[in-house]
């Protein structure tokens, strides 16, 4: 480990299982990230989000009364959201494809299946830090560009007005 702690970086963990919360906090401490906030569901998390404006969110999927999908939508779409661009890593035991797709369509940045390994978590975080994604706003969706990789051999279907043209970034 090199250098001083990341004093001003703030991370929010949203997880209803106390053991998993503790595990994630410990992993963040191993990275020298000290400002870690915890919530046991999406509703409590949103209150912390407004107060603390974290730089990164790690969230579970299944929680009550507000789950990780609804929380992610709130972060991305609510007018009260202090930072709709905040990276969100969803960490869950759910590996069913339809749930993964729900998470993606809610606007999560990265998806990580449990069991957690340090290597997999750190790879996801490195991806976020080193290659921040473009965001897309279109009918019914705001979040990271779901087309993660440009596929040169892709022939369509084309769904965006700017497909096959020079992309205009604002």
């Amino acid at each position, binding site marked *: 480990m*090199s250098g001083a702690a990341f004093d001003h970086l703030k991370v929010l963990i949203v997880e209803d299982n106390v053991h998993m919360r503790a595990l994630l906090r410990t992993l963040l401490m191993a990275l020298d990230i000290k400002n870690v906030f915890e919530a046991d569901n999406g509703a409590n998390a949103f209150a912390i989000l407004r107060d603390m404006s974290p730089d990164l969110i790690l969230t579970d999927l299944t929680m009550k009364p507000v789950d990780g999908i609804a929380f992610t939508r709130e972060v991305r779409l609510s007018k009260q959201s202090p930072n709709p661009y905040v990276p969100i890593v969803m960490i869950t035991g759910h590996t069913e494809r339809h749930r993964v797709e729900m998470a993606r369509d809610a606007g999560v940045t990265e998806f990580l299946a449990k069991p957690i390994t340090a290597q997999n978590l750190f790879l996801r975080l490195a991806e976020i830090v080193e290659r*921040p994604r473009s965001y897309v706003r279109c009918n019914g969706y705001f979040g990271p560009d779901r087309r993660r990789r440009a596929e040169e051999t892709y022939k369509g*279907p084309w*769904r*965006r007005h700017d497909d096959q043209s020079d992309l205009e970034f*604002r």
Partner: protein
Amino acid sequence: MTGQNPSSPGQKKSTTATKIAPGTYPTFATADAMRLSRVLRDPETTTKAARVIADKADELRMAVLAHVGRLEEAARISDIGAVFEQAHEIRGLAGNAGLAATGRIANGLCKYIDVIDRAGCKPERSVVVLHLEAIARAAHAEDEATRLGDTVADELALLVEKRLSEINVSATGKAGEFIAP
């Protein structure tokens, strides 16, 4: 658009999407990003963090056993929703508790209940009970990470596949598809 499928290959469909590039929205400060990247890519950090996870195994194992008790209670009162919830908690924790086979069996049970539920069917009690017994035995075993635990997990996975193939899952679309952990 003259009667053609608007999403056919090579053809554009008019959807308004605004793309917002990194740098035009708040991201990590460059200095932080560089430092964090170095730390995240440092093998020493990863090794240290892996040790941290390993140190938690006993604590997590106790948590898994507590969920196994709740799972058995949920099955006793035939609350299939609670069975799924507890099996889901177990599959989430078991891998980090050094109970890989327990996690696999719990994952199989979740898969079975999820697909059956989405197909509008009721789970077979015998399938649920077989998983329950296997989870309980594996979680309590001194060394569940043996070929026996894996064999049981494999056999139960085959059973789930067979049972799911017997129901009409076509109506559920991709419900039966799972990603690799």
